[in-house]
């Protein structure tokens, strides 16, 4: 019953998306106000219907309704409720339904609240949003129906991949998806503005909160995913340049560039065509990521489906959406009039540098991610990993971060470095001093650059606050400072992890003592324990930092039985200056237990930095929304007064 309702809601939502597209196009083509009036309400109802379908699926999963094929093949009655709930998007069909739900809701939200743009641009934007949604509805309904039924009904489900049975599943995918799909709004705004040729500061101001919002969620989603991989996989690494990770990094790089260029367009009316282009590129990268992850051409915990028809379907969607957007851009870019001028040494100049470097890094990641696929289609199997990605992205990121130290201090339009020579000298001194110390200590090149840049940025990111009354500093400026400081924090954590990590791999008997870095560990016990749908061996390890009172760590080797699979649950001991990471391995033939131990100085700063960056986004967004609201209220007041006087 619920499954039928969900499917009906989904079909209805798809029909409304078609209506939204047709009505929007007709109204744009000048067929009168009759159609223009219905576009906004239709967009809202479409989003609500998609959400209803998603809720239906979540209910089916929570009830473990095994007559639904998706539930039967991905869930199990003995699974904890949290994973029944979150498991509804831990599979191909469910995750695509989550995608269209967010897309529909985001479109509805825009239709409901966005009133600053000219009505024609809004119509074009909502029609564009409907066009993109329609493709994904078709994909869902024709190639991956989440509500497909089973007859006869199986007695038990097949269970969820144990690697996904972690609280992270409840948080990481929805967050990342809001980020991915939120960028579709920027895409549709870009399309709308191209169709009506209304590219200007108003367009950038309307688009900016949506980009900022998506970017915040992307940042949080990537940060959470990185930490999840770090503790769940038991490999001690936090970023593997896995294609799936790259799929989330590419939209983030594009959105970061877009965020900065949109601020140039909003404040200075420059970089017009470029900002529109980035709006198209950012969501295109989201779709490329979906294609990579969902088509089954890659294998990882994220690639649920290995079904060639689905791959071709997504590829076709990708080609249509990106192709159409690029053609439109090509046709209209020349008629987007050029914006205001600026000198090379100016805030705009620094932001252009930021954009070019981010785009370069994006290119590096894209090429490295797609290359194995191209090579394989020519019959050669290759994999591309950190030896390529680390130095190649650093070539772009290092100069960008160096400019980041002074860019925010420059004035708009035209400036001279001599005006801020003191600040430049401080930054350069910190950078060179840091490098000198590191050369003496013999740190490898990339971590050395990372540490020196992090030290410089931590100070330089605070310089824009210098000489201001802190109580009068506006929220967006606080946001910028927090985000840039967060970059320094995260960079420091990354560089420390790769420069100073101590790793040990030992085979130990109960009672043995092991040292790793400043830690003394004692293997106290190995005990069997049982969970709701797994059994495990749990080690009791006493860990003492430089002779202090020991903490008890309990890493587990878990054995799940639906599906039958084992996982390692690492144990972490976090101090202010780093993290001890312990993994329990197998028992060797002679009765000793394998232990893999890491002491990772300052590694948690990577994720704290990520959170700070996102917090910066939140502050900036709050600042923008508050000032927009104030403006709207002020305008309404004036209108109301006029009306009263007129009476």
């Amino acid at each position, binding site marked *: 019953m619920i499954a039928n309702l969900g499917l009906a809601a989904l079909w209805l939502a798809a029909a409304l998306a078609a209506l939204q597209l047709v009505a929007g196009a007709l109204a744009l083509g000048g067929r009168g106000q009759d159609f223009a009036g219905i576009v906004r309400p239709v967009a809202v109802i479409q989003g609500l219907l998609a959400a209803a379908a998603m809720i239906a699926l979540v209910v089916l999963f929570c009830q473990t309704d095994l007559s639904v094929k998706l539930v039967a093949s991905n869930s199990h009655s003995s699974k904890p409720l949290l994973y029944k709930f979150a498991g509804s998007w831990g599979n191909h069909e469910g995750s695509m339904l989550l995608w269209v739900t967010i897309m529909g809701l985001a479109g509805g939200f825009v239709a409901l609240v966005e009133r600053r743009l000219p009505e024609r641009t809004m119509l074009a934007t909502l029609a564009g949003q409907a066009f993109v949604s329609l493709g994904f509805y078709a994909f869902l309904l024709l190639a991956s129906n989440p509500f497909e039924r089973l007859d006869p009904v199986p007695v038990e489900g097949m269970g969820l991949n144990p690697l996904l049975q972690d609280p992270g599943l409840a948080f990481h995918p929805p967050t990342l998806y809001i980020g991915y799909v939120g960028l579709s709004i920027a895409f549709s705004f870009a399309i709308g503005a191209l169709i009506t040729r209304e590219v200007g500061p108003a367009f950038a101001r309307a688009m900016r909160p949506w980009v900022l919002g998506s970017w915040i969620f992307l940042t949080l989603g990537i940060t959470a995913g990185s930490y999840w991989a770090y503790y769940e996989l038991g490999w001690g690494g936090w970023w593997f340049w896995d294609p799936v990770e790259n799929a989330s990094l590419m939209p983030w790089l594009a959105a970061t560039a877009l965020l900065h260029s949109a601020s140039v367009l909003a404040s200075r009316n420059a970089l017009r065509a470029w900002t529109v282009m980035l709006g198209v590129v950012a969501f295109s990268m989201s779709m490329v990521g979906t294609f990579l992850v969902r088509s089954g051409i890659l294998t990882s915990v994220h690639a649920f489906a290995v079904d060639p028809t689905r791959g071709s379907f997504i590829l076709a969607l990708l080609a249509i959406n990106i192709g159409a957007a690029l053609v439109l851009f090509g046709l209209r870019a020349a008629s987007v009039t*050029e914006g205001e001028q600026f000198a090379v040494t100016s805030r705009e100049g620094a932001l252009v540098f930021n954009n070019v470097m981010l785009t*370069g890094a994006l290119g*590096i990641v894209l090429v490295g991610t797609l290359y194995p696929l191209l090579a394989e289609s020519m019959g050669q199997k290759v994999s591309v*990993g950190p030896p390529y990605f680390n130095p190649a992205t650093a070539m772009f990121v290092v100069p960008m971060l160096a400019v980041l130290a002074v860019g925010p201090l420059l004035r708009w339009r035209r400036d*001279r470095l001599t005006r801020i020579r003191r600040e430049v000298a401080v930054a350069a001194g910190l950078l060179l001093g840091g490098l000198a110390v590191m050369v003496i200590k013999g740190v490898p090149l990339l971590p050395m650059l990372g540490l020196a840049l992090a030290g410089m940025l931590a100070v330089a990111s605070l310089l824009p606050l210098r000489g201001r009354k802190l109580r009068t500093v506006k929220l967006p400026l606080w946001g910028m400072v927090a985000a840039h400081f967060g970059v320094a924090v995260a960079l420091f954590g990354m560089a420390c992890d790769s420069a100073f990590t101590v790793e040990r791999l*030992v085979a130990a008997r109960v009672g043995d003592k092991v040292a790793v870095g400043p830690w003394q560990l004692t293997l106290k016990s190995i005990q069997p324990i049982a969970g709701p749908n797994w059994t495990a061996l749990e080690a009791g390890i006493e860990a003492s930092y430089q002779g202090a009172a020991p903490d008890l760590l309990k890493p587990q080797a878990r054995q799940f039985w639906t599906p039958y699979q084992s996982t390692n649950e690492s144990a972490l001991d976090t101090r202010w200056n780093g993290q001890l990471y312990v993994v329990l391995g197998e028992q060797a033939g002679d009765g000793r237990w394998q232990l893999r131990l890491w002491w990772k100085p300052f590694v948690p700063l990577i994720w704290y930095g990520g959170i700070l960056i996102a917090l910066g986004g939140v502050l900036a967004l709050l600042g923008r929304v508050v000032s927009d609201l104030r403006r709207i209220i002020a305008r309404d007041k004036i209108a109301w007064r006029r009306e009263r006087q007129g009476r």
Partner: protein
Amino acid sequence: MSQPGATSQPVKAKHQRLILVLIALAALIGAALLAAWALRSQASYFYVPADIASNPPEADRAVRLGGMVEAGSLKTNADGVTIRFVVGDGKARVPVQFKGIVPDLFKEGSGVVAEGKLGRDGTFVANNLLAKHDEKYVPREMAGMSADQARKTVEETR
């Protein structure tokens, strides 16, 4: 960015967009060239034992080796954490050494992909092992194994 002290004038209106486009193009072409160069030297190629026998990779070049762990070949060194085994594909055999915790479904007679380097003595020194995780997660290279090997892998891991 311009040198300190230089008073940079706003560039002539007509030319600025052209210059921006050129800079962006130059950066993208630079990125592409850099990527192509780095890929040629850093991409790690996939080998099966027969390839290693006929045309071995240069020593110290990162590559991947895929095949079946031969039954009866798995040994653990005295340190308890270093393992040795032989990877074969029916045509050739390559001894492999690995120090670390093996993936959960790594066992004799089942498929494996080892990441590492071929040592000068002909032993492949792996720094990472990838095994089949479950029915839905197979290292991509394993998907290309012969039907017989694939069948064996599936039987083994069921």
